């Protein structure tokens, strides 16, 4: 991937606070218009990485650039290129939503004549037009998150960095937030999103980076990461009824590795198994089941789960440390 086509380039980024290494040689590249999910346990270095990217913290070593602009040497230029939403909202008392956005628009030097239209646009994009006359401090958490995103969009940045945008939201608000983020990606924005709600991230992210103790443990698409961290896939065979479950389990055992984990679920009429065998051999298994007159209603691979990937990566890291 060339640096010219990458919206975000991070190379060997390291941050040391005294004895603590908060970030240890972080490197990745992210293309324009993609959504990166930055995940990791508490204290993994996510916020440190974000703060260096937006120019609020200095790196001890390494370099980072956004749209070709060096984050470490040109923090002022970075402010115009990046829209940053921290995990705290930063509300001002006695200010209405419109006044709040007007202030940040003015702070970014947007002319008054253009600012009015720009505020309307970002409020429409984030579905918050109806809140324009509300007091900021009286908004619910979900509403504040929308206004936070609207604020980051005011100066039309090419990269948005959102720290925990779905944190504390109810399921409905989470769905709406997901739609907003996807809409922004459609508009060509590059997004870096941190979250603890992994199923949410897995639905919107093109790329995932897993950080643990300051180190990048995995980077890539969800399926890539799953394959890297776990050579085995989970497959399911569903039958018309639970009668032939034992027979199916026996046939599966003949195909997969001897130590493979096979479970039967009579209530669902399903046999689940984990294997590292290639897809071609799974095709042979399906053919054998059908030729044995077994009524197979579904034969499928269970999609990779971000939670599994996350736990697997962090567990591997802890095992190798110990």
């Amino acid at each position: 991937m060339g640096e010219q086509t990458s919206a975000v380039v991070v190379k060997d980024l390291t941050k040391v606070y005294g004895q603590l290494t908060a970030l240890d040689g972080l490197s990745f590249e992210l293309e324009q218009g993609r959504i990166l999910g930055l995940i990791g346990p508490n204290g993994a270095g996510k916020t440190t990485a974000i703060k260096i990217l937006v120019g609020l913290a200095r790196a001890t070593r390494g370099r980072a650039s956004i749209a070709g602009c060096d984050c470490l040497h040109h923090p002022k230029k970075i402010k115009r290129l990046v829209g940053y939403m921290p995990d705290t909202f930063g509300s001002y008392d006695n200010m209405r939503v419109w006044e709040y956005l007007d202030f940040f628009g003015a702070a970014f030097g947007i002319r008054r004549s253009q600012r009015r239209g720009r505020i309307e646009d970002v409020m429409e994009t984030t579905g918050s037009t109806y809140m324009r006359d509300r007091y900021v401090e009286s908004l619910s958490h979900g509403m504040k998150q929308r206004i936070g995103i609207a604020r980051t969009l005011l100066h039309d940045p090419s990269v948005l960095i959102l720290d925990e945008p779905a944190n504390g939201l109810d399921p409905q608000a989470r769905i709406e937030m997901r739609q907003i983020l996807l809409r922004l990606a459609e508009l060509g924005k590059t997004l870096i999103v941190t979250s603890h709600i992994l199923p949410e991230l897995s639905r919107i992210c093109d790329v995932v980076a897993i950080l643990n103790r300051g180190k990048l443990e995995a980077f890539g698409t969800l399926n890539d990461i799953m394959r890297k961290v776990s050579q085995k896939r989970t497959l399911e065979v569903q039958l018309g009824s639970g009668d032939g479950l034992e027979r199916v389990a026996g046939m599966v055992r003949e195909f997969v590795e001897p130590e493979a984990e096979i479970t039967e679920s009579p209530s669902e009429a399903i046999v689940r198994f984990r294997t590292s065998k290639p897809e071609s051999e799974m095709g042979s298994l399906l053919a054998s089941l059908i030729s044995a007159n077994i009524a197979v209603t579904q034969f499928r691979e269970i999609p990779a789960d971000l939670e599994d990937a996350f736990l697997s990566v962090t567990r591997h890291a802890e095992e190798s440390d110990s």
Partner: protein
Amino acid sequence: MGYAIVERELIGTLRTRRALALLVGVAIAFSLLVVSRWPSDATVELSGVQAQEVFRLFAYGLLAILVLMVPAFPATSVVREKNQGTLDLLLNSPMPSWSIYLGKMLGILVFVILLLTMSLPAASAAYAMGGVSWLRQILPLYGILALVLVQYTALALLVSSYAATTDSALKITYGLVLLAAVVTLGPHFFLQGQPGWMPKAAEWVRCASPVPTVMELVGHGDAGSFGRGAPTTLARFAAFAAGSAIVFAVTTIVRLNSFLLDRPRPQGIVTDDRSTAQQWLRRLVFLVDPHRRKRGIGPFVNPVMVKEFRTRRFGRIHWLLRLVSLAALVSLLLTYAATTGTIDWGVETIGGIMVILQVALLLVLTPSLAANLISTERESGGWELLMMTPLPARSILLGKLLSVFLTLLLLMLATLPGYLVMIWIHPPLRWQVWQVLICLSWMALFAMFLSAAVSSLCRRTALATTISYALLSVVCVGTMLIWLGGGTTFGHELVESVLQINPMAAALTIIEAPGFTNYRLVPSNWWWMGGMCLLCVFVMLAQTWRLTRPQ
């Protein structure tokens, strides 16, 4: 059950650094006081004058500590629990509201009693020096202090139950405490010895303050009475303190129920969406309606300054207009009354009243405006957002300071008509009036820069507000306590040296207000003020620069 709250409040308070600093500071200060006055030779001083001097300083010091420091603890007590959500848990427990209140009250009282205990060795030493009586002086002093403690704690808890933020609770509490302890002395100071009902009323009003009672006890007769006899204030003060404490306590207990938290989110209806009649009515009432829809922030205007004005509840333009109108009206009425001869105070007395009123206004308003300039941003997370805008640090700081400066300028200008009338009545006063205005301008600048510097050093607004009020009170009110003891406890030179740092005293000497004619404080006071302002600006700039750097 209430014991749990007492324990939690007390331990919570004792764990804070400011509590430790206060306890250690009081112990050290009073030990030094006794050591400095302890007889160094073998002769015994039978008159007891030395012991009385120590006791006076001791009494004023304790009173100043109570007035300046104690309100900070209860003022944040209820409002902090309300904002953190722990008040919900307390109100949801089987504890009755009086038990919660008592727990909070006792927690604070026990802490302050601990603080007062730190002064007992010094009190014993003063007694050992001879000439000070336990029964007639030391015990009554502690009795008065206990009353002050209960009254101000009850007041602060009541304010805390009404306030929306810890910051506003502190501002209102300090404003009311300064009003009760200091401003109530003003009318009597100027009206004493005059015929009519007003001096009598002023005599009663000043009993709301503990200062005259303590002065009587330490043998100063009466606050600023210059030898004229005055009736004893102890009984009046005790009745007022006890009565008001009971009223404050009952009101707070009644308020401590789930309805305290049962408030809807503000609807945020803008005036533009109301009926035409309502729009007109609001226009008449507000002059500048804060709820009308705004046009965007204009070009060539510092957006941070506009934001500061818009985010203030008190300090938005409609409030300022009211305050300025009131200040202008009072100053004009005072001078008009003097001109027409309805009151025979003289221009100096009128000038003195105006100076004290103006300083009181500056003292109450300035920290409430300036002490939250940076600390609130850091506390709410707004600082990080500001740092993410292309605004340079100097623009942010300038916008913030301008918002305070313009407010203070309006207030200063409001009293200008009064001073102009004074010059018209007595033209030779022109030069003096100018000098007074310079003193007051220094006062305003010093209060603004000091509060802003403190704000840049603190992460929490409540702490910044408390420290700002305390420092300004030491400069403007604390030094006046030394002046009150002038001629008896303290020599003329010492009083004059201490007053050098007080711009209000400097203004009063220029206007030749009663009691200030023997002091020369200008221009040394201006040099002091200039130096202190420079120091505060340097601290503020250095700290802001540090905060704007990437970490």
